[in-house]
């Protein structure tokens, strides 16, 4: 490092200290991130992570220097693009990813931007008084009319499909409707943890899926417990109910008359009677007046 300026040496040293003292190292790209977003991100990472911007070559120097302590850490290098910054944390990589995702905010669609998901104009009152805006909405294909003195969107309308470009006119309309379909924020491009590089596609957590998995796990355990008659505190009532229902099914279907089934059997006879009556109700004289009601 003979030709490296002192301030650079200092910076590399600092980076190395931070790298050594944190279990998870993330790479983000801060290029074109609005100041407001930077603030939001700093706020959501406060107390949980440290973020440091540096020149790519300095970061690389630091990574190379500590590679013997942290195997594979130089694997982060290719993810440093744009205006790279390093995030140091002891949270697990997935949590870091989630915090950054959660700090993203909605933004208006700009003309020429690509929709990351279907952009929907929801049905309902737009709050606008009748006027030229109605024509503007109709021009971009939004089903709108005047209702109760307001311009109203009649039904949910997909105005830009996922992957399609937002036209200037649509962008203007969406802004007037105060619909902010885009998302701005900082992307965690990759994270290093325990000798492994996790890329953003792996770090993405589908919470909905997790919720479904938990419910499926519970339902499966519940079903197994009840179907195999494994009594647990959580399922014993269901097991008893099941035994009762099955016994009652048998009793009613086999017309076994006892105090518990007689009411059901009378009801069953009556229901069957009505079903047959219904089938022949068109034939004159086949039914007595009571059944024709």
């Amino acid at each position, binding site marked *: 490092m003979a030709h490296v300026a002192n301030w650079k040496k200092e910076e590399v040293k600092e980076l190395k200290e931070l790298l050594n003292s944190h279990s998870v190292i993330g790479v983000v790209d801060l290029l074109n991130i609005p100041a407001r977003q930077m603030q939001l991100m700093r706020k959501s990472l406060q107390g949980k992570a440290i973020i440091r911007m540096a020149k790519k070559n300095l970061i690389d120097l630091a990574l190379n220097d500590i590679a013997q302590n942290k195997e594979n850490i130089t694997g982060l290098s290719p993810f440093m693009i744009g205006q790279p910054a390093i995030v140091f944390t002891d949270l697990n990589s997935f949590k870091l990813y989630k915090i950054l995702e959660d700090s993203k905010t909605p933004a208006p669609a700009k003309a020429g931007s690509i929709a990351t998901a279907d952009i929907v104009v929801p049905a309902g009152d737009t709050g606008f008084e009748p006027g030229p805006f109605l024509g503007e909405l109709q021009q971009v294909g939004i089903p709108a009319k005047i209702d109760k003195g307001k311009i109203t969107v009649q039904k949910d309308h997909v105005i830009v499909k996922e992957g399609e470009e937002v036209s200037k006119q649509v962008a203007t309309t969406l802004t007037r409707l105060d619909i902010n379909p885009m998302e701005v924020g900082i992307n965690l491009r990759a994270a290093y943890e325990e000798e492994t590089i996790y890329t953003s596609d792996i770090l993405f957590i589908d919470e909905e899926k997790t919720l479904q998995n938990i419910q499926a796990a519970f339902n499966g355990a519940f079903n197994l417990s009840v179907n195999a008659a494994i009594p647990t505190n959580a399922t014993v009532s269901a097991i008893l109910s099941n035994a009762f229902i099955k016994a009652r099914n048998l009793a009613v279907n086999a017309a076994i008359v006892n105090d518990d089934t007689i*009411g059901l059997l*009378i009801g069953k006879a009556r229901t069957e009677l009505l079903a047959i009556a219904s089938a022949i109700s068109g034939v004159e004289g086949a039914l007595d007046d009571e059944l024709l009601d």
Partner: protein
Amino acid sequence: MEYVYAAMILHSVDKDINENNVKKIVEAAGIDADEARIKALIAALDDVDISEAIETAAVATAPAAPVAA
């Protein structure tokens, strides 16, 4: 269900639902009456008001049994 239906007939025509009457109906259908099943039926009906049971069933089944197609 023939025993239950027999009781329903007797109820419809306002006759006493007893072992003998149920038996006569079931036998009129051409089968041997099973005295044990008749006894069980009569015993169970002892505490039950058929009209009320029908009404309860009728309410519960109302939408299921539209009498006219």
